[in-house]
Every structure is written in C-alpha cells, then in structure tokens.
C-alpha cells in the first residue's frame, strides 16, 4: 500500500515538474511567447509577435529616399530568414527589411516577426535591435549620429520564448496518472480485503473409502480453494489482482455434482479456520471444531479437516 502511494506521488511529481517553469517574469515591454510540440490533433501555431515601430521625423523636408531598417542581434549581425521572417504592414519582406518613407510616413509601421520552426523547439531569449541599412540623410536618430553605432540606441527588444509541454499531452498524461492512481487504489483496497489461508494442508475425508489431502504450498497466496468435479479449470489471470488467487482441486466421484468452495474464515494468523459453501443448495455444511461435515446432494458425507 505504502509503496503504491509512493509510486503515485512520484508520478505526479514527475509530471508537474516537467511542465512548470521555475519563475515567470512579467517583463512589461518585452515579448513573451510559448510553443509546444505537436501531439495528436493539438498542433502549435506559428510563433510570432506583433509590434508597431513608432517613428517621428522632424525637419526632414530636405531629405529624399526611404529609411531602411533591419533587425540585428547584439553582435550587429542581421537576423536572417532562417531565424525569423518579417512582415511589414501585413506583407512579407523578402530581405527582412523595413522601409519607411520619412515624407509619407504615418507614425507607426505594423510589423510581425515569425520565428522559424528550427528555433522554437527549446527555450530561447532573443535580443534584437533595429539597424539602419539606408539613411536618407538623417543627422540624428534617437539623439545619436547614425553611421557610427552598430544599431539604433534604444531600439533593443527582448523576446523570451518558452517551449512548453503540449497542453493536450499534459491533459492526457494527467488523465492517465489519475486513472492509474484510481486503479491502484481499487487494487490496494481489494487486496486489503482479501482473506487468505493460514493452513498448509486441508484433508478431505470422504468417510466411505478414501481420504485426500490438499497441500497448499504457499497458503497466504490463496483466497479460495474450489473443489470442482470439472477437470482442468483455471482462474482468469487478471482476477487474482482483485479477488485473490483461487486454487482449483479436481475431485472425482458421482457425489461431487457442484463446486464446493473453501475460504479462510478469519483475518488473523491465529484464526486459521476455514468455511465452506456451494452455489448448489442441495449441499449442506456443518462446522464441528476444526472440521466441516459436508453433506452431498445424494446424502453422502465428506469431512473437511485443516
């Protein structure tokens, strides 16, 4: 019982430790995404973030040409399409760049960044910045002189991506664990309720011409002995888990017309008594100390002693 409980608790602990993050940080302006492996019909969506690049141009009347930006990492390396694809105002950018016309610019450019399937299979933190690819003649960008810096100061974004366990898998695993736990509990209760033999020999004295002994090598294994006139009977292999093991003993003779069942009477080791019964109401049983007198339907008698 104790062991079963330990196993159940361990299974729960393993399940929940595998799908719980240590600490979740709510980082406000930073991006947080999650993905999971496909499982059955529950497939993951593309991992993406939506943002607006807010731009404010001042005194740009004299310049011409677009401002072209791209994403780069902390080493100023551009982010290629192998890592993420960029959508600008709903259209995919073939070279992952963002083109903004200072003269015809609204204040915001909507972008979506979709992570490549190759990079979403584990937890990642991306730190990306905006880098100028083409400067139409801006003297200052974010208070600094463009051209000398590896990226535009103040445009760094952090993107925490967590790869979690598929929620369907969590549900299925949890259901299975609960089912197993319930089954284990039922088995444990059934096993605890089973009375077992404490004697190693049961004698059946037919009182006419013969006396047989049934040897029970490991009596505590057995919950029932069935004296049966039908040879070759065997117990269903699953049944012992719930009702205990049954020992079938073939008994020969015309007086044996139905199964006679012997069961332990007491629960304690000291109480080794046995009781008998039959589904056939023509059988009758009289207990006499450490023996039972059994009357067969044909009125023949047998004595069961332990």
């Amino acid at each position, binding site marked *: 019982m104790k062991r079963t409980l330990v196993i159940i608790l361990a299974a729960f602990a393993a399940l929940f430790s595998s799908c719980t993050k*240590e*600490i979740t*940080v*709510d*980082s*406000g*302006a*930073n*991006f947080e995404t999650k993905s999971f492996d496909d499982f059955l019909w529950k497939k993951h969506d593309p991992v993406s*973030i*939506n*943002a*607006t*690049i*807010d*731009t*404010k*141009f*001042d*005194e*740009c009347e*004299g*310049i011409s040409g677009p*401002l072209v*930006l791209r994403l780069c990492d*902390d*080493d100023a390396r551009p982010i290629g399409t192998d890592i993420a694809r960029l959508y600008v105002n709903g259209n995919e950018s073939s070279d992952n760049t963002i083109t903004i016309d*200072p003269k015809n610019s609204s204040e*915001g450019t*909507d972008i979506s960044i979709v992570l490549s399937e190759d990079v979403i299979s*584990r*937890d*990642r*933190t*991306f*730190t990306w910045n*905006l880098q100028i690819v083409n400067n139409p*003649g*801006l*003297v*200052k*960008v*974010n*208070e*600094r*002189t463009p051209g*000398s*810096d*590896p*990226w*535009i*100061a*103040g*445009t*760094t*974004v*952090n993107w*925490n991506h*967590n790869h979690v366990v598929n929620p369907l898998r969590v549900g299925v695993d949890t259901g299975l664990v609960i089912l197993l736990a319930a089954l284990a509990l039922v088995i444990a209760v059934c096993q605890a309720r089973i009375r077992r033999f404490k004697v190693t020999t049961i004698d059946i004295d037919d009182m006419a011409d013969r006396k047989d002994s049934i040897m029970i090598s490991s009596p505590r294994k057995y919950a029932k002995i069935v004296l049966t006139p039908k040879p070759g009977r065997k117990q269903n292999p699953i049944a012992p888990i719930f009702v205990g093991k049954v020992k079938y003993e073939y008994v020969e003779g015309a007086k044996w017309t139905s199964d006679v069942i012997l069961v332990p009477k007491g629960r304690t080791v000291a109480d080794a008594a046995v009781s008998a019964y039959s589904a056939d109401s023509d059988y009758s049983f009289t207990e006499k100390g450490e023996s039972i007198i059994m009357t067969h339907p044909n009125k023949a008698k047998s004595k069961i002693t332990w």
Partner: protein
Amino acid sequence: MKRLSTILSSLVLAGTMAFPAGASLPAVPSQATASQQDDEAFKKERRIFLWDVTISMVGATASEGAGIVKGSKRSNPDFDYAKSNFPNYNKSKDIFDETRDKLIKMIMQIQNESTEIIILPFRNGIVGEYKAVATADGKNQVCDYIRSWNDLKAGGTHTATSLSNAVDKYFTPDRINRLFLLTDGEPSDNEGSRLLSYLRNWKGVKETRGSSSYLVYVMLTDEAYNDEIVEIGENSGGDITVTRDFKEPVWITIGHDSSVHVRDFLEGKVSSNGKGTFEVPFTFIAGNALPANSVFHFSVEENEFISIDPSAAVKASDGKLSVPFSLKKSSVEEYLSSMPADGEVVVRALCTKDPSSDKNLSLTGSNAVNVSLVIKAQPRATISWSVK
C-alpha cells in the same frame, strides 16, 4: 570618433562659455564621461554576483541570548553547529534561503541572452566560481549551482580581498561590468578599512578595468550597514549603489543621451515660452516595474542656456523619465549668437532618486545624461517599439 570629437569640442566650448571664474560645480557628483556613455549603449554586460557564504548566513552564532537556540540544527542545509565554533542558532539571522531565492530571481530576470553571469561565493576568499551566459539553459544551470550550494563554513568575511580579486579577474573594458556584492556582516580584521579604501578609489578601478565598472553593494543585515560605505555610494555618481533593502529590489539604469531642439520651444512647435520636457529612457537591472511612489530629481551643471529645477519631481511613464526644463534665453537669435558654430552644446544633467521614493528602488550605473542643445535645423528621427 566623429561624435566623440564633436562632443568633446562642444564640452570645451560649453565649458569656456558656461563656467566663468567662480561658477559653482555640479551639485551632484558624477564619474561619467561622454565617451563612456557613447560606448555603453552597445556593450554587452557581465553580471558578477559576489555572494557571502559565511556560516552567519544561516544564523549560526557564538553568542547566547533571547531567541538563540543552543546546538539547534537547521533542516536545509543540514548543518552541525556544534562543530563550527558557532554553536548556537539565531533564526532571525537565518537569511541564507531568502538570499538564495532573491539571487535566483535576479538571475531569471536577466533578459539579454548575451549577458555573462558569474557566481562567486566568498568568505575568507572566493571559494567557488560558476560562469554561464544568460540563455534559458545557462540561467537554469546557474540557478542549479546556487540551489545546490551547501558549503557554509566558519571563517572570516574577507570582503575587500574577495571584491578586489573578483574585479581584477573578471572586469574587462569591453563589457559593462556590474558586480553585486551580497553580504550579511562586517568585514573581518583589517578588511573593513581595506574595503573603504578600495571603494574610495573606485575611480582607479574604472581607469584600469574599464569605464563601465559598477558595484551594487547589498547590505543584507544591520551588521553589514556602514555609514561610510553609504556615503561613498552617495558620492560615486552611480558607480557604487549601496542598498540595505533586498526585499523586492528594483534597480534601474538610465539612458545617457537626450536633446533639446531650442527652436521647438521658442517658435511654437512645442511651446513658445522656452519651457518643456526632455526624455530620459531607463531599463531594469532588477525588478520589472517601478513602485508607484518613484520620484526622481534632475539637476544640471552651471550653464547659460538651460535650467532644471532640482526640486521638481520627475516621474516615469512608458519607460521614460520626462524632465522639465526652462530655456534661459528668450529668443533663437540669442542662442545663435552665443552657441558654437556647429550649433550644438552638450550640458550634463544628473539624476538622483528622491529620498521619499520606495526604499527598494535604486539607480545603478552612471547617473549622468548628456543633453544636447540643438539650434540649427537637423533632419532627425525618433524610433521606438510598441507592443501591439
């Protein structure tokens, strides 16, 4: 380099014009220089955690008295006090688990994957080392190392030796080096005086180990409190942050560049009376939200162009501090006649936290902002992200 020379020449010009003989010095000290601030926006960071693992961190004590239990054992780590020369246990001083949890939280809050994390447990010297980068795996490994640390022994708290060794070994000019010193006790023997001397000479550390060298000194208990260290921190211009509060630390660092386009505030684009605000961005080193009562003040070095009321409350909004200012001259012409030929002057403003602000809030890193005053027309853009 072009920017650097521009700033330097501007500073020289501004200095000669703005600091006549007898002019007062800046009200709040700062060690920041323009070149440092230029570099810092693009440097990767190294965070070093110098973590006190002396036996007193688990409440072990040689003294006796109320609330102190003789020979008591602590469940985790399972520690035999009787063998440690600290035979008693003071539960109220047992801050080991709490400190460890905070340390882990701080590490998990690091957002930038290229940040290098170094954990250095110390007592009579540095007694361990664990290095990783702040990827998800790296952070988990560091946290596992911290969680599994169970080596607490009696011995001195050699803070100065450990600090100087950590700085010598790990501070490099190519990174922002930020060392977090977490200690619960007074340094042993002459380590206290050595520590004061070392901290007073932090400028020397910056000269030899790089300008972006910062210390966050966390006094975990009253025993660790030292007035002189607090004073050194207050006078360090943000290089040394000293805090006694480690409950929910919110440590921020401010941006170092801003500008005021003079015409906008005199010719009606923003205002006509020379009054307005400029913005200073900030980022979190620890924590992720400013407490509600966070108030800052800015002061500006003596100059003839712009003034900032040092008593004005500056509050944060959308990751920025909006600093109110007043232009000292009333017309563009006056500025044109007094500003240098390239039309740009840089003045330095300094940020301080209002004492009434949340005690867990601290500024780390340089507290200086270079405010460029621009007079000529300048095609410019402001670019930022916003989450949809």
